[in-house]
């Protein structure tokens, strides 16, 4: 029942934040960052289990490891960008948050270019001349 732990953590953090916000908003903000980091830490153990299973499947299916690695890197970039964007949006800086999201999208696009080019080449090979 790890979900109970996480919900409890969230409730405690919300209460502490409500307590601190009017006295010293900086500290409540740091508590929020901290709680987010902890929940991420908690999830990342599970994510690594899932990724191990995916890797095993990919090895058995004879998929080129480069593709799987690229996809995992894309997921990692998405996680980090989401983390930063949510924190900045919580702090009221929507403009910076959307810039972080834009940067994440562009970096993901750069990583995906090899895969896209492989797909396009495959499609072109399928088309008879």
């Amino acid at each position, binding site marked *: 029942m790890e979900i109970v732990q996480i919900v409890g*953590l969230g409730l405690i953090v919300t209460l*502490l934040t409500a307590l*601190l916000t009017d*006295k010293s908003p*900086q500290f409540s903000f740091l508590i929020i960052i*901290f709680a987010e980091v*902890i929940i991420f830490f*908690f999830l990342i153990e599970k994510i690594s289990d899932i990724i191990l299973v995916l890797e095993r499947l990919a090895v058995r299916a004879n998929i080129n490891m480069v593709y799987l690695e690229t996809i995992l890197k894309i997921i990692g970039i998405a*996680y980090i960008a989401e983390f930063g964007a949510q924190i900045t949006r919580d702090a009221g800086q929507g403009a910076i948050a959307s810039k972080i999201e834009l940067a994440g999208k562009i970096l993901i696009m750069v990583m995906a270019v090899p895969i896209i080019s492989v797909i396009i080449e495959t499609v072109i090979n399928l088309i008879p001349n």
Partner: protein
Amino acid sequence: MQFEIETIFQIAGIGIILAMIHTILKQMGKEDVAHWVIVIGFVVILYMVAFFVNDLFQEIQRVFLFQ
């Protein structure tokens, strides 16, 4: 999870105590000292949080096969 919960309470406690110290110093008329107290407390906690964020990013890089 035990250790992390303790750290959250630590941060909240430091925040509350610093807010109290800030109010008292303000009442005593030492507003510049009160300001510096808040700044130093903020830096200390920021250091802790930055440490944990660094840990998190290292872990993400490890899990998602960045090397």
